[in-house]
């Protein structure tokens, strides 16, 4: 009994941390937000009363929020005490649409199949020989050290007159080219998949087209070439001619479509042209040029005309400053 009294006394020294509300408040700890739906006292006598009322309301809501946050699981660190916030409840709109799924590259497919995990390797590795940390690859690494091949021992089965240093350089070049080719292949495949075409079929079609073109790329356009065994005569594409008389609606449609394509491309490059503004600007340019011509002698006027036209586009200047 004494102890409880003492505890009560000790507690009474401090202000309370509990808040009584009619309707319990909604907490969205993921956003550190509290939504208090209790009806408010709408009659405030003066501005100061209103401020005090708002202050007390805010204090109570903040107390409830902080009580909830401080009741979460804490992890102590040398930087401080951290809490794991739960997932947010309120749905807020994203600023950009969802990213499109990129198709997997050849290696990624293989790795998934064989369940190969990607383990992150650190950039610096301890080098036993020097006793310090060196990069694992690239400039300054133990493997790439130019002093490594101060002497290259020639193996017994190798050609004694072969330049080993040149050979090393060639091998490196080949590796780089191989990597580059693989990258291009992956990019081509991704592009084909995005277009909705099977990449293998696309590559095959591309090869066949190149082959056809190379067969024609002789002085006689492939007419007087010796034929190889097993060479298949390429299928000629016959030109289709529409009938000159009869129903012309199909031709009209195709012409319309072609015109629309051309105009669409034009519109895309020019954008929505504000014709009023454009004409006004052109008028201004003309007037300025005329004024310059009329007021001064020819040379100076021309010079001024050139400089004023450079500064004529006010919109562009504003845009540059942003």
């Amino acid at each position, binding site marked *: 009994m004494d102890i409880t009294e003492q505890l009560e006394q*000790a*507690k009474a*020294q*401090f*202000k*309370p*941390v509990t808040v009584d509300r009619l309707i319990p408040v909604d907490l969205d700890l993921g*956003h*550190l*937000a*509290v*939504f*208090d*739906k*209790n*009806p*408010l006292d*709408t009659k405030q006598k003066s501005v100061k009363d*209103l*401020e005090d009322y*708002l*202050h007390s*309301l*805010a*204090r109570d*809501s*903040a*107390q409830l*929020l*902080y*009580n909830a*946050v*401080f*009741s979460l699981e*804490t*992890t102590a660190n040398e*930087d*401080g*005490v*951290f*809490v*794991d*916030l739960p*997932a947010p409840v*309120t*749905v*807020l*709109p*994203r*600023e*950009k*649409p*969802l*990213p*499109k799924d990129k198709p997997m590259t050849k290696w990624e497919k293989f790795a998934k199949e064989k369940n190969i995990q990607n383990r992150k390797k650190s950039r610096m590795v301890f080098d036993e020989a020097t006793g310090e940390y060196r990069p694992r690859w690239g400039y300054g690494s133990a493997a790439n050290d130019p002093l490594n091949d101060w002497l290259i021992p020639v193996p017994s089965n190798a050609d004694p007159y072969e330049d080993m240093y040149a050979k090393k350089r060639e091998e490196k070049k080949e590796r780089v080219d191989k990597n580059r080719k693989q990258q291009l292949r992956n990019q081509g495949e991704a592009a084909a998949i995005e277009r909705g075409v099977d990449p293998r079929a696309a590559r095959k079609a591309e090869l066949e087209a190149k082959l056809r073109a190379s067969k024609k790329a002789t002085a006689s356009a492939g007419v007087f070439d010796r034929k190889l065994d097993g060479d298949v005569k390429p299928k000629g594409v016959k030109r289709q001619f529409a009938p000159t008389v009869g129903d012309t609606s199909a031709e009209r449609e195709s012409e319309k479509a072609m015109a629309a394509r051309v105009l669409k491309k034009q519109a895309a490059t020019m*954008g*929505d042209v504000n014709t009023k503004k454009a004409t006004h600007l052109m008028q201004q340019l003309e007037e300025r040029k005329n004024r310059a011509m009329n007021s001064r002698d020819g040379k100076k006027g021309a010079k001024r005309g050139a400089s004023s036209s450079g500064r004529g586009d006010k919109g562009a200047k504003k*845009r540059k*400053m*942003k």
Partner: protein
Amino acid sequence: MLRKVKAKNARTKRFLDNRAPKVVENAKTSIMVRGSSSSAVVNQALADLYSIKKPNAVNFTKKNDVHPFEDTQKLEFYSQKNDASLLLVGNHNKKRPHNLTLMRMFDYQVLDMYEFGITQFVSLHDLNTPKCAVGMKPSLLFQGDWDSTPELQNIQNAWLDFFQGEKVATINLAGLEYCIAITHLNGTIHLRVYTAHLKKSGQKLPRIELVEMGPRIDLTVRRTRPPVPELWKAATKMPKELKPSKTKNIKTDVFGDKFGQLHMQKQDLAMLQTRKMKALKRTRDPAEDAEDDDAAGAGSDVDMGEA
């Protein structure tokens, strides 16, 4: 309007990848824009909100001929150029004095717009109270009736989005420095910003005392343009990486033991692999057994005879 830029080196590639659509997005940047004519109140309000939203904010100090509710092309351009999805446009004219428009963008196109009129404003420079550090995440306190109309709900969502700050999963308890209280009372929205001070309370939970930091802004709602439902739906779509994954088949009982059901294919019990016992190798009838016994017996007699 902006030409598509291709990365020519690793640095620009990193820059473009940062601005590209991502699963977990960056914190939203805001632009504070002034209209062709704006008042001192509006300018100061924009400056104060900019200092609260730093570093995720850009302050345009020059005047721009922008009218959000008439033409949004310029504002969409600013949004794309600065990679910002929140815009606060301030202007002042006879018809709409001390006007403040909060705009949200989705994919650099206008998602929704809310126009407010500032009826009372006290700058944070006029309140000689301690201010919090730059870039802290605020606690948001919404008070009053925000659910009565869908317009108010949208406005609440917009202000929550505006003041949200960085998206964090863990937070340092010492970093809960300030609170923003947005109260809806008598048709006016009262925006107050306070610094939070934790006092001893004799228990684990601290006693919170608030000191007003400023600014103090009272707003009345003017025109609004709520989001188009299709655009809102596209904007609130959650990527499947962030959807909570459901664990099936795993149950925990009162004692904390984990239970799950193993689903097996149908087994042919006749073909079960067991220990090989020669005696059980083939089916034996009694007649065969007897024969075997006799044979065994005869054999044994003969052996004994010889020995």
